[in-house]
């Protein structure tokens, strides 16, 4: 009996669910996989029955998508691993991944099946209703839901530094924002409203997501700018729509037009349909969908991933094996270390030899690995019989420091003891540029506004580059103020302080954290610049910095540009490099000034030689002076040519009672021929004037016909007859004045004759 009892199965009831409420589903709805290969396994979904008053059937039935049976939780059991198309194995240690929509379960617990009827959404919709001055009704609830939902998505994306643009993630954000803003217009709101809902959203959510509070200024600025911009698009889109009404056939607007409005002006199809409803015009929805599908295909093709690199498997393996590298470079410029790993052509090797290029990892290092915008260190790693030249240092998986370079002498093996020495002069410049970047960042926020956030940074040994969110160019006055802030802090000659804290303490201390950046349990906080017993700048940073702000030296912004929609870039120099830059710039300017001054002197001399007085041009910049003197010289020359019988030949004749002037001038500018035609017309009173000029072997010609004769003779036709002969290709003008050119000066007389013959 005892034996039998010990074998008895024991009963355990987990759920008590009757069998008829467990639905077996054979489709992919209940089988999850990470991709074509990798972990996969069955899912089990939990449903809630909202009651018979709603339409919808149980899981697996035809009408399962109704409102009655709602999926509330999906449990994924990662049981297998798909190794190839046909091979699937059991995972030795299976895993679990579950997902439950917070909005959906909250709705359920608040006794509704409508997520937008929950406390959180009701709060947002109430504000939307107040701002648009519209009561929520059955007809307009969709617009209020859109505003609440799209505001959430937009605010969270902007808080991570995603900005509206025309590609990739930024484009998705823009579409969401535009769609939301269109609905606020539909509700009759003429003013931007979205940014006014931000404080409520922050109040609702910043407990769990403090990034919203941190980015408040940015979210507000971006929402406001985009909504103002869209206002204009909306009216322009309306114009396009009205212009295209002529294309309407059979009371149907072409699908491409509707799509253009959708795509370029942010008009959803339903808005276009709504506008046209009054005019009893439909939209060719099939054509719209076709254009839309083509666009989707294109977008799919265009989205080739974010461009970030996937971390190579080798680093995960190495991290397991050798752990993290200890970084000594905050204090030291040289140290000893043990070689833990050598990599050649992407593979681990046990030794490298003279001439080999590769990567070298030690247990500790003074070399800074590129991160946070700061470039990696260079230098040497060596021992008594080998020398590895480090050309770059990279950081992998956060804390493996990888020295890249070439073994210029000897041989290095795993476990060798080595000396590591960085290029200290280069590092000193990098330190100064990095500290200057912090001061610049804070100065930008003070002068331009709190919406300024870092979008990118490069800290090198010879310059700094800083990209940040800002929608317009920085004017000269602002630049001066920004530079003054930085230079005042440099001159404050104050200690730079580094502290280690938890991320929360850091933010409580007012530290500027980078948006969309992940921080560990402990962060370095850099404070610098003395300002009324407080620090001017406090920022989270893992980089290397000066000990005293005075080490930065004189600072100046030397360049600014726009690098993407809403993102500006400034470049700055400091200390000796700035002095060299300014010196070089001055030399260039001096030599340019010298060249232009010489030109002015020679022009003035030429004018004097022709017996005239050079125009007084003292107040003008050099290039303007040159322009003015050249013009004066040209006029003098024209006068001289006209006075000189050898260079100005005029023959007036009468053909069948019609007065015709032939005039040939030399070196006379073609663009001034009109003045000769006008003079000729005056002299003849009634007749035709034909003028030729030869400049550098090229012929210019013009024909003038006096007003009363234009009905009989057309200047354009006459000039064409003439230009044909001198190798020209036609000519143009009006019936009383026309011009042409050619390259056969010897045929001028023949050209004239050809015109005369036609008269």
């Amino acid at each position, binding site marked *: 009996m005892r034996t039998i009892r010990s074998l008895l199965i024991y009963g355990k*009831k987990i759920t008590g669910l009757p069998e008829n409420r467990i639905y077996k589903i054979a489709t992919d709805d209940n089988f999850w996989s990470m991709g074509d290969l990798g972990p996969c396994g069955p899912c089990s979904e939990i449903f809630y029955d909202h009651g018979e008053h709603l339409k919808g059937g149980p899981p697996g039935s035809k009408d399962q998508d109704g409102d009655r049976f709602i999926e509330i939780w999906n449990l994924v059991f990662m049981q297998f691993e798909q190794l190839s198309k046909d091979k699937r194995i059991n995972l030795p240690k299976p895993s679990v991944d579950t997902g439950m929509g917070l909005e959906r379960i909250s709705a359920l617990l608040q006794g509704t099946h409508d*997520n937008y009827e929950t406390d959180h959404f009701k709060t947002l919709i109430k504000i939307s209703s107040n701002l648009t001055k519209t009561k929520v009704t059955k007809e307009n609830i969709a617009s209020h839901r859109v505003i609440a939902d799209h505001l*959430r998505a937009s605010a969270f994306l902007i808080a991570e530094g995603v900005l509206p643009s025309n590609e990739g993630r930024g484009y998705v954000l823009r579409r969401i924002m535009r769609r939301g803003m269109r609905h606020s217009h539909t509700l009759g709101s003429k003013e931007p409203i979205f940014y006014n809902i931000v404080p409520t959203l922050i109040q609702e959510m910043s407990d769990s997501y403090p990034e919203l509070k941190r980015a408040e200024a940015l979210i507000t600025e971006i929402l406001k700018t985009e909504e103002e911009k869209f206002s204009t698009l909306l009216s322009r889109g309306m114009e396009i729509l009205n212009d295209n009404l002529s294309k309407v056939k059979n009371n149907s607007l072409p699908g491409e037009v509707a799509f253009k409005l959708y795509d370029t002006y942010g008009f959803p199809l339903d808005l276009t349909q709504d506008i046209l409803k009054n005019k009893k015009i439909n939209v060719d929805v099939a054509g719209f969908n076709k254009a839309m599908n083509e666009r989707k295909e294109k977008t799919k093709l265009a989205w080739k991933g974010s461009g970030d690199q996937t971390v190579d498997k080798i680093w995960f393996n190495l991290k397991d094996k050798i752990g993290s590298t200890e970084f000594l470079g905050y204090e030291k410029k040289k140290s000893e270390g043990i070689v833990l790993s050598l990599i050649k052509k992407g593979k681990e090797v046990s030794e490298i030899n003279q001439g080999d290029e590769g990567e070298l990892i030690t247990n500790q290092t003074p070399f800074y690995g590129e991160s946070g915008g700061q470039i990696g260190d260079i230098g040497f790693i060596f021992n008594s019989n080998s020398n590895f030249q480090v050309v770059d240092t990279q950081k992998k998986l956060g804390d493996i420091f990888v020295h890249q370079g070439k073994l210029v002498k000897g041989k290095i093996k795993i476990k060798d003891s080595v000396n590591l020495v960085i290029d200290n002069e280069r590092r000193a410049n990098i330190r100064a540029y990095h500290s200057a970047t912090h001061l610049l960042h804070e100065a930008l926020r003070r002068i331009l506004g709190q919406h300024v956030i870092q979008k990118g940074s490069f800290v090198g040994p010879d310059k700094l580059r800083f990209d940040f969110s800002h929608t317009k160019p920085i004017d000269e006055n602002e630049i001066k103020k920004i530079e003054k802030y930085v230079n005042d802090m440099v001159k404050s000659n104050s200690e730079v302080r580094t502290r280690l804290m938890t991320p929360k303490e850091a933010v409580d201390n007012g530290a500027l954290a980078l948006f969309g950046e992940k921080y560990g349990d402990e962060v370095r906080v850099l404070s610098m610049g003395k300002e009324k017993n407080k620090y001017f700048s406090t920022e989270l940073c893992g980089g290397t910095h000066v000990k005293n702000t005075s080490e930065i030296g004189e600072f100046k912004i030397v360049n600014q540009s726009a690098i993407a929609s809403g993102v500006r870039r400034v470049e700055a120099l400091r200390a000796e490099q700035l002095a060299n830059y300014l010196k070089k710039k001055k030399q260039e300017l001096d030599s340019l000034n010298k060249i232009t001054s010489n030109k002015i002197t020679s022009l003035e001399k030429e004018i004097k030689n022709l017996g005239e007085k050079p125009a007084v041009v003292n107040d003008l910049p050099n290039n303007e002076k040159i322009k003015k003197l050249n013009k004066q010289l040209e006029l003098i020359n024209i006068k001289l040519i006209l006075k000189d019988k050898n260079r100005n030949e005029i023959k007036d004749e009468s053909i069948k009672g019609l007065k015709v002037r032939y005039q040939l001038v030399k070196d006379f500018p073609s663009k001034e021929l009109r003045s000769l035609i006008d003079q000729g017309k005056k002299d003849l009173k009634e007749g035709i004037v034909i003028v030729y000029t030869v400049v550098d072997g090229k012929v210019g010609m013009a024909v003038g016909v006096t007003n009363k004769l234009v009905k009989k003779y057309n200047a354009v036709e006459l000039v064409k007859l003439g230009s044909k002969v001198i190798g020209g290709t036609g000519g143009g003008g009006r019936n009383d004045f026309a011009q042409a050119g050619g390259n056969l000066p010897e045929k001028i007389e023949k050209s004239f004759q050809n015109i005369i013959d036609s008269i």
Partner: protein
Amino acid sequence: MVEKTLKNVRKSFLNYFENKNHKIVDSSNLVPNNDPTLMFTNSGMVQFKNVFTGLEKRDYKRATTSQKCVRAGGKHNDLENVGYTPRHHTFFEMLGNFSFGDYFKDVAIELSWNLITKEFQLSKDKISVSVYADDKESFDLWKKNYWITRK
């Protein structure tokens, strides 16, 4: 749970799993930093992908999160639906619990059942579940009076 506000539901979910030895992990970013093929984080498991495949190790085997997600197009969500239905969103939060080679189906089902029926106090009669047709194990675990052999 006093008032079943969004805030309280989030908190009560995370606390429930924390009490069952799960580590509360912060939501990762919407812009994924470990997956260049993904436009936005769209589920709770995204930040744990490398942990599930075994590439990366963490110092915990059970985790729970409330994850920020964006779905704006693609197979999961058509932007055009948002606003016109009671349950479509572009931005939402996904609650989840995760076991990295620790517990499996039995514990997962038990934890979920107890959360919704005891903590959230949903009526058992309103609950139904689906399982994959071939997954007899899960079917049996959900079934009333399920018996297992003692090992």
